[in-house]
Every structure is written in structure tokens, then in C-alpha cells.
């Protein structure tokens, strides 16, 4: 059953031109235009400006219990969409139909009073969501517990650290028992540990039927949490579907927009010399198709396409993988290769499955070319891609790399004798030695 249906939704804002904005007309009109009064015409240009559709023809529906990710560049209309669903602003056209209580986290701590204690703020928030007082009183202990406020629960919020503020805000929202949760960049702040707990809690509530609209720029979080993503650009839905595909499309477009252009735009001539030129650096799957994001559970390939200008050059490629501006690893060709003819030469490296972590990598490429003397071609930021996985919970993939390594389990017979025998399925192997998992 659909928990939220958005039909042909549109929101138009009027953006006054600079001249009109400076004129006093707008302020003196005071919205009386609809009244049958003689129009007061004042100096200043009337109605100058343009209409801006922040959202147009947006249609989608969300089944109960789904976590829908919404991505898009700044100003694409994501927040406007959430604001309409939260009833903060009215749509210009179209319709939203939903079932149950909507709780919005459009801004952490909106609707908090810094002079009130946590308890009073909880009650106030409950009132703002139209929740009965008794129901709210019942939830206070669990809200305070999840927020880890400890001894601060009775202090005014003014004295809270930003982390505590954040924890309280999230805890209040999720414990209001929403049927639909609107979350706009809720995880942009706060420490990693709490972010993880939030994501887990959201996933857990989703299993119970909570529908979530999750707006974020954190592709890793979106990809991990959401089985479906909508990409909004300039107020319209560009893509709606599986996370890897939508994110790939989005990042591709984003990179086309600035990333690659900027890299190529650096016309320092570094990526080209008399011997060779780096024509492209691409991420591919096992079938040789170009992809925008790397599933950590599959092998992926990075291909450097070179234009060789001088046959007979000896080449060796290096790739540096960065995550969050730190060099994670460098890989290079063990054997030098000889470009025996002019034309296109592909140098491809395989990144095995279960090596990358769920983060965004940037690849710098260097190719040493030896003809008479050693030269090199360099392309920084040649490729940016995200790696994503599907393992449950967010604890599994951490760090800049997350390789799959062999683990050994060994149980000792003596130690186990003292215990009662477990259920049949769990009896240790009869040989009592080690077993490799």
C-alpha cells in the first residue's frame, strides 16, 4: 500500500527583479490586491521579475516502509518538495496524498526553545505535531535515553553541546512515532557513531512500516540506506530507481558539469606530451561497460585510454586512489609495456571485489613514458567514483579500505568441557580442532 502519493506537484516562486525589489510597491500592496479596491499605483515598477518553478511535474509514490533517497544539486528543489509535504509551504499545482502522521526534520532543532529543559522541549514538540500530552509524557524516558543526555535532561538547551542538541532533535523526531519521516540532511552534522545509530534506527523503524524521505548529499549514506533513489534536477525528477544506477547517473552528470571539465580544463599540458596523451580514465564493470559507482561485492576495472603518438615508447602507469583527500593506496604496472604502434592503447587495472570501502574515491593517474628520456603525463582527479555495498547495518564497511580477509576460529576442548553441551546444531566439530570459516 502506498503511504505517500505525489501527483504532478509544482511550486512556483516569484523572483522580483533587482529593480522591482528595490521599489516600495511590494511592501505597500500588503496582499490587498484581491480585494475590490481601487488599485493604488505607486512609483516603482509593478510586477517586474520572473516566475521560477522550484518544482514542476513531480510525480511518484512511496509504499509504506520504504526509505526513499532524494538526491540532487543544491537548489534542485529537494527541500521545496519536503516543505510541501510537511505543509510548511503550499504547492502551486498538483497534489500530495498521504497516510498517517508526518514528522519533519527539515532542520535540527527547529521548534526547540533554548530556554526550556529537554523535557519541556519534548512536550512542546509533541504539541507541535498534534500529539496528545499523555502519549508524549510516556515517551520522555526513551527519548532522553536514546539522546544520551544523561544528567543534562533538566538543564535548559542553551547549555547543550551541539552534539547533544542534535541527538535530542533526532530522538524526538523518531520517537514521535511518525508514519512518514522527512529528513533533510539530518546527518550532515554530528559524530560518526551517532550517525550510525540514527541510520540503524531509521532502518529498523522502516521495517515496522515507517516511510522515510531522506534528502542527503552523502551518497554513501543514501546508497546504503535506500533501496530506491530519486534524483531531482531543476525541479524535475530526472531518475527514479535503484540506487547504484541513479547515483551513477547523477555523479556522471555532476562530473560532466564540473569535475572532469575542471580536470581537463587545467590546460597545463600535463596530461599530454609528445609521446602520449591520456584520453580518458573510466570505471568499468566486468562486461566492459562504463559505470558511475563501484559495487564492493564485484570486481571493477579502471581503464586508462592513451593516445600513443610515438611508437616504440616504453610505458608504465601509476594510479593513486584517494579517499577524503588521503592517499589510500598506489598501484602500478609491474611490467613496463611497449607501445609498438601509434593509436589507442588501453591500460586497465582490476580492483577486486571486497577491497574497497563504502566511500568516494578519487583517482590520480600518472603514466611514465620513456622514449629517449623519461617523461610523464599526469591527470589529477581523473576519475571520481563511489563504492557501495548492500550489507545490512552500517558497521561492516568502515575506513578507507575494507578488504575481505581470512579469519580463523579455534575453540579449545578443555575450556568447553566445563560448560553444558549446547543445542545439537551448535556442538563443536568432533575433531575439536580449528575450523576455517
Amino acid at each position, binding site marked *: 500500500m502506498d503511504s505517500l502519493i505525489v501527483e504532478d506537484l509544482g511550486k512556483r*516562486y516569484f523572483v522580483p527583479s533587482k529593480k522591482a525589489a528595490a521599489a516600495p510597491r*511590494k*511592501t*505597500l500592496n*500588503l*496582499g490587498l490586491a*484581491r480585494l475590490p479596491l481601487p488599485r493604488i499605483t505607486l512609483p516603482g515598477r509593478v510586477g517586474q521579475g520572473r516566475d521560477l518553478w522550484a518544482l514542476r511535474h513531480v510525480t511518484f509514490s512511496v509504499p509504506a516502509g520504504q526509505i526513499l533517497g532524494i538526491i540532487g544539486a543544491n537548489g534542485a528543489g529537494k527541500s521545496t518538495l519536503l*516543505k*510541501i*509535504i*510537511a*505543509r*510548511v*509551504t*503550499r*504547492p*502551486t*499545482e*498538483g*497534489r*500530495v*496524498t*498521504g*497516510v498517517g502522521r508526518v514528522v*519533519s526534520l*527539515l*532542520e535540527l532543532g*527547529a*521548534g526547540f*526553545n533554548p*530556554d*526550556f529543559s529537554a523535557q*519541556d522541549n519534548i*512536550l*512542546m514538540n509533541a*504539541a*507541535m505535531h*498534534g500529539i496528545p*500530552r499523555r502519549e508524549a509524557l510516556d515517551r520522555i524516558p526513551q527519548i532522553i535515553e536514546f539522546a544520551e543526555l544523561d544528567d543534562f535532561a533538566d538543564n535548559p538547551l542553551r547549555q547543550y553541546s551541539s552534539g547533544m542538541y542534535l541527538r535530542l532533535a533526532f530522538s524526538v523526531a523518531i520517537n514521535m512515532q511518525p508514519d512518514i519521516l522527512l529528513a533533510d540532511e539530518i546527518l550532515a552534522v554530528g559524530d560518526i557513531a551517532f550517525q550510525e545509530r540514527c541510520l540503524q534506527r531509521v532502518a529498523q523503524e522502516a521495517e515496522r512500516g515507517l516511510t522515510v524521505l531522506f534528502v542527503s548529499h552523502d551518497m554513501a549514506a543514501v546508497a546504503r540506506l535506500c533501496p530506491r533513489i530519486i534524483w531531482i534536477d531543476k525541479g524535475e525528477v530526472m531518475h527514479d530507481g535503484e540506487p547504484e544506477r541513479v547515483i551513477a547517473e547523477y555523479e556522471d552528470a555532476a562530473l560532466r558539469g564540473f569535475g572532469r571539465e575542471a580536470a581537463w580544463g587545467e590546460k597545463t599540458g600535463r596530461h599530454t606530451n609528445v609521446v602520449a596523451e591520456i584520453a580518458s580514465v573510466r570505471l568499468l564493470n566486468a562486461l566492459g561497460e562504463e559505470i558511475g559507482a563501484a559495487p564492493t561485492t564485484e570486481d571493477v576495472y579502471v581503464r586508462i585510454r592513451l593516445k600513443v603518438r610515438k611508437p616504440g615508447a616504453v610505458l608504465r602507469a601509476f594510479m593513486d586512489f584517494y579517499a577524503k583527500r588521503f592517499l589510500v593506496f598506489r598501484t602500478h604496472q609491474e611490467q613496463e609495456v611497449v607501445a609498438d604502434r601509434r593509436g589507442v592503447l588501453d591500460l586497465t587495472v582490476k580492483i577486486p571485489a571486497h577491497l574497497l570501502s563504502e566511500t568516494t574515491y578519487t583517482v590520480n593517474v600518472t603514466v611514465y613514458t620513456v622514449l629517449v628520456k623519461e617523461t610523464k603525463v599526469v591527470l589529477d582527479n581523473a576519475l571520481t567514483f563511489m563504492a557501495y555495498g548492500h550489507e545490512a547495518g552500517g558497521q561492516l564497511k568502515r575506513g578507507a579500505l575494507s578488504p575481505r580477509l581470512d579469519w580463523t576460529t579455534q575453540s579449545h576442548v578443555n575450556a568447553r568441557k566445563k560448560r553444558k553441551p549446547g543445542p545439537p546444531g551448535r556442538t563443536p566439530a568432533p575433531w575439536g580442532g580449528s575450523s576455517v570459516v
Partner: protein
Amino acid sequence: MWTIEADADQGFGPRTREVWRYRRILWFFSLKSLQTLYSKTVLGPAWILIRTLVPLGVGSFVFGSIMQVPSGGVPYFVFFLAGQVPWNCFDGPLIRGSRGIEMNRQLLTKLYVPRIILPLASMTAGVAEPIIIALVLLGSLVYYRVNDGVWYVQPEPRMLAAVASVVVVLALAFSLTLWTSVWQARARDARFVLRYVVGFWLFLTPVIYPLSAVPADIRWLAQLNPLTPPIETFKWALLPGMQQSWPWFLYSVGVTVAAFLGGAWYFTRSESLTMDKL
């Protein structure tokens, strides 16, 4: 199951029910508006007292002792206070209620609450003053009892009319905030204009002088002012030797109802646009 549509008006019934469902935010926003009276001050809540009492002293000295305004048989101070109580039920609540939307801009752009509650809640800060003035009035009566040996106010059934007057004045103030709070959210200019208007309004209303001091031939003009009848009624209910007229009182009630209905219509009508302009 709920629906959000471009131009669907909920209608009066559902809106009222919604306000009822959210009624408890009235309390929290009222507290917040009270805090604005003294937050970040050294003296704290004492400011409420100071701000109320100093103008009382100055006003009664200027009008009573210097200008010798007639007060119909009671000490001018008592007369002055009896006018100040209902007037302050209008002045403060109107000025503060008008800020209701603008003050909560931060919240309103992030969270939905029935906005019509906000001007009402913000009026609360303005109610503190008339309450204090009423207490001062009570104190002054005790003072004159001890000094002059007279109770200038006798407990009588007609004192109930004072309560009715206060209700009418507060209702009129709220009805007007439904207009002014929208204007003020759109343009701060409204705030300055409002201050002027209310400042003049005070002198056009028989607050510091009795209605009987107005020349008889233009008295009807003063009574057209919807504040005149309830304020006169308030004084009549408390003090001896005053006059009031029930038909004019009903006229005020009528104006208030009209202002409320018009205000509710206007507020709802312009709500969506106002929110977009915050």
C-alpha cells in the same frame, strides 16, 4: 489519510478542529513571548514591573497634578488606573500579537503549526501589564481606604461588566492582529506605522479623560471609536459617578465580531503567500 492541494481551503470547521488539536502550543508560545520581555537582561522579570510602573507614575502626575484633568469625584490616580487597565488590554496585546508571525519566522519555515495560534500566543506578553496595573489599582484603593477612610470601589454586581469590557477589548486586539501580523510579516514598516496609530488612538479614546469631557455635539464621534464604549463601561463598573451606554457597548461587540471574521478570512487567505515571503 490527508491531502495537500494547491488551492484547497480546509473550511472553517476543519480549521477550528485543527487549532483545537494543536491548542497546547498556545501555552509554549505564550511562555516564549513572556520570556522575550526580559530575556538577556540583568534585572530579569523585574523589568516587567519597571516598564509598567514608571509610565503610570509619570502619566498620573502629568495629567492629574499638572493638567488637572477632571476625574469625577475620585482621586485622579484611581481614575487613571481604571482607564489604563482596559487600554493596556488593547495596546500591549495588539503590538505584541502583531509580531507573532514575524517573531517565529525561523520556526514557520521549517515546521507546520496552525499559524493563527501564533498572534494569539504572542499577545500573552501584553497581558502581563494590565494585570500588574490592576494590582496597583487594588493597592491604591487600599491606600485611600487607609488615608481617606473611603472605599472608592464598592463590590457590586455591575463589576461583572468590567470583565465583559476586558473580554471585548482583548477580542478586538486579537481580531486586529489577524491583519497586522500579516502586514508585519511582509514588511517591517507596518510595525512603525502601528506604533504611531496606537499612540494616537490612545488620545482619541477616553482613557486619561472621561467621555463627559468631550463636547456633547461631537461625543457620538468619540463613541464611534470601538474602544470607547468598553473602556467607559469598565470605568462605570468600578467607579462611582460614571456613565456608559449599553447600545454603544453592543456596537463595539459588533465591530469586534466583524473585525474577527474579516481578520480570520484575510489571515487564511494570505497565509500561503505570507509563508513564502518569510
